[in-house]
């Protein structure tokens, strides 16, 4: 049991972990492009007591306690996997609510007991909305097959493209914005559908997602030797990798995928995502332009923004600990040059109140943008999209505008298609294109567009043009 816990903790670095009383672990990475959810049934443990007998019935409407622990702290508990495998006999996890401590006790050989008291803070649920059962494509494989496949890619390879066709499944390394094609190593690996335990392909697909995260997931799956299921749809929609053949626990990993403009021309959602993608490409190669459906329910996102700016909403049993959270995030912001530009631009523009999601793009930089809890789905999706790409809030917001398909009329959609054809792959679309989405008929440089009053429009970041 410990091994499994160790592996899962090992791979989810730099995430915030959420704990549920019935022992589920959820984490999301800093760019919100990868989400993991593991649910442990009581049978996973040798002894499980959720203390529900002690809970008053009117304590909270949701059952159980939700709290989050800094991932780094969790990882220190399981720092040395080999020594844990060697010497730890059992592990006892208790929640010390009065002192806000999550206690890990490792009972080792020779009568040694190691106790780790990790501070936690209460939080709301982090929930990704994904429907793995409704995806047209599904692959089931033993992790060994995929491990052998991904080992062929270079260690520093960031992203991989999965191409699913009825006759073969291919894995290709994804090359992003490479100036010199001669300097690039292209790796492609073909797998026969028969090699998979189960192969159901409804739609021919080509999706690109993060290889590093896939490697981590495969590493975990290999340790527990359970087959993994990959549920996916098309570029832009997330890929869900799940391990649920074991009765004792269930793991779901949701990874964002890149939206590929060459293949998607008709769907508005994809188009809007493409815009964002192009922008991101030109701006920064580092940040992945993911537009996934990983979204947080309103409470949790606001929790994040609140958490870093405002103390009133959540109980704070350990103030110093929160400061550490803030510091981590601040550190990430300060170290990222693009983010500064973002915040600068952010402040120049009036947040668009008309758009349904008026949430700040970056949870930390603009915490005062309304934290209204929107219950309708589309805005929340958009807001999470923005959260996906903290570098370029504007683009996501623009993307969001066209997002609810019902608001776009037919003519606008046609316009989009035409313009899309005009774009050169790998370069940002023309400014005229952008203006069409927003119903503005300007074709000047984006400097002007930026300064336009916002009605249904989000002004584009000036940085984009500077980088071109």
């Amino acid at each position, binding site marked *: 049991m410990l091994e499994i816990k160790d592996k899962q903790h090992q791979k989810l670095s730099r995430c915030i972990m959420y704990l549920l009383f019935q022992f589920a672990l959820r984490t999301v990475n800093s760019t919100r492009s990868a989400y993991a959810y593991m649910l442990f049934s009581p049978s996973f443990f040798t002894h499980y007591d959720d203390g529900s007998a002690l809970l008053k019935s009117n304590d909270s409407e949701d059952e159980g306690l939700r709290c989050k622990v800094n991932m780094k702290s969790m990882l*220190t508990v399981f720092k040395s996997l080999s020594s844990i495998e060697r*010497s730890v006999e059992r592990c006892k996890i208790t929640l010390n609510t009065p002192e806000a*401590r999550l206690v890990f006790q490792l009972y080792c050989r020779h009568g*040694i007991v190691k*106790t780790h008291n990790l501070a936690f803070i209460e939080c709301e649920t982090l929930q990704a909305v994904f429907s793995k059962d409704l995806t047209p494509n599904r692959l089931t494989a033993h992790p060994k097959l995929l491990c052998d496949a991904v080992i062929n890619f270079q260690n520093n390879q960031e992203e991989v493209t999965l191409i699913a066709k009825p006759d073969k499944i291919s894995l290709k390394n994804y090359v992003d914005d490479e100036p010199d094609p001669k300097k690039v190593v292209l790796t492609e690996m073909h797998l026969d559908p028969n090699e998979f335990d189960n192969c159901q392909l409804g739609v021919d697909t080509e999706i690109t997602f993060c290889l590093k995260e896939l490697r981590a997931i495969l590493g975990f799956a290999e340790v527990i030797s359970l087959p993994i299921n990959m549920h996916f749809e098309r570029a832009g929609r997330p890929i869900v990798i799940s391990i649920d053949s074991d009765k004792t626990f269930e793991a779901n990993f949701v990874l964002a995928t890149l939206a590929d403009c060459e293949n998607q021309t008709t769907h508005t959602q994809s188009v809007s995502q493409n815009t964002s993608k192009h922008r991101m490409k030109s701006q920064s190669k580092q940040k992945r332009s993911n537009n996934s459906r990983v979204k947080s329910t309103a409470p949790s996102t606001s929790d994040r923004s609140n958490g870093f700016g405002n103390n009133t909403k959540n109980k704070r049993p350990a103030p110093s600990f929160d400061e550490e959270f803030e510091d981590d995030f601040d550190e990430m912001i300060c170290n990222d040059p693009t983010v500064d530009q973002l915040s600068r631009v952010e402040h120049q523009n009036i947040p668009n109140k008309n758009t349904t999601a008026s949430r700040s793009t970056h949870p930390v930089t603009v915490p005062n943008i309304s934290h209204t809890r929107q219950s309708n789905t589309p805005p929340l999706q958009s807001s999470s999209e923005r959260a996906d790409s903290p570098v370029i809030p504007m683009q996501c917001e623009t993307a969001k505008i066209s997002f609810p398909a019902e608001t776009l009329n037919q003519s606008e959609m046609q316009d989009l298609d035409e313009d899309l054809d005009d774009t050169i792959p790998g370069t940002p679309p023309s400014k005229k294109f952008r203006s069409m989405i927003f119903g503005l008929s300007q074709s000047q440089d984006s400097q002007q567009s930026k300064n336009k009053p916002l009605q249904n429009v989000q002004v584009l970041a000036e940085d984009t043009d500077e980088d071109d």
Partner: protein
Amino acid sequence: MSLSTQQADNDSQYLMVAKLDNARHVSTILKAIHFKDTATIFASPMGLKVTTEDAKCVQANAFIQEAIFHEFTIKEEQIIFKINLTVLLECLTIFGNSSVPGVTTSLKMCYAGYGQPLLLILEEDSVVTDCSIKTLEPDEVLDFDFCSTNVINKIIMKSECLKEVFSELDMTSEILQILMSPDAPYFQLSTFGNSGSTQSDFSKESDMVESFQCTKTQTNRYKISLLKPTVKALGLSTRISIRTDNRGFLSLQYMIKNEDNQVCFVEFYCAPDEELDDEPGH
């Protein structure tokens, strides 16, 4: 024949001559206390004692008794000099660190007297290296005044289990708290870092504990940065003795076995971390 008599004549000019078949016996021990650049060497008919200190709070002593050497002559009761330990170690390992079985570096150390350099002659596979290291004026070394009569708690245990704990100490914690008690939890090491607190409890019933003599419950805190160098010595050792006295001073003694199964000792003394305004001290 003439060569050896010649050598003996040459050697007579030195106050101290020490010969050793395997320089690693010395270099390994010295590495265990190498957390400072300079060390004070005390030579006596009993052997060598090498001392390093830091912050006037921690002191490490390495004892290389004369039985380790296959020849050890000394003309005075005590010879003291200070030397750059980093340079000394570099010279001792001049033929490299790799331990190929069968190939050893032989060492001859000579010291002519006050102000004279320490001479090292190292030979491996008929390649000879001569080193001459300047010696320095010895500083006063701390006397921790740690006598066994004042020892309150003493635990002797095997090093294995501690090695892991010490190497995984939470370095974000400023202090390491050591609790020794005749009652549960018997022996506990605690750190208080950014991620929370961590305790490691060792039961006295544990088969790792060879001797457990604790008379009173004592909790002492030591700066973790001062104790971190002990990890190296711990890694080399097979057994460790942990003692605290009535002032809270900590004495760690490590028994190290070298390649020829000879036993050497390394000990660390550390002053407790006082939170009050009065001087930390001994």
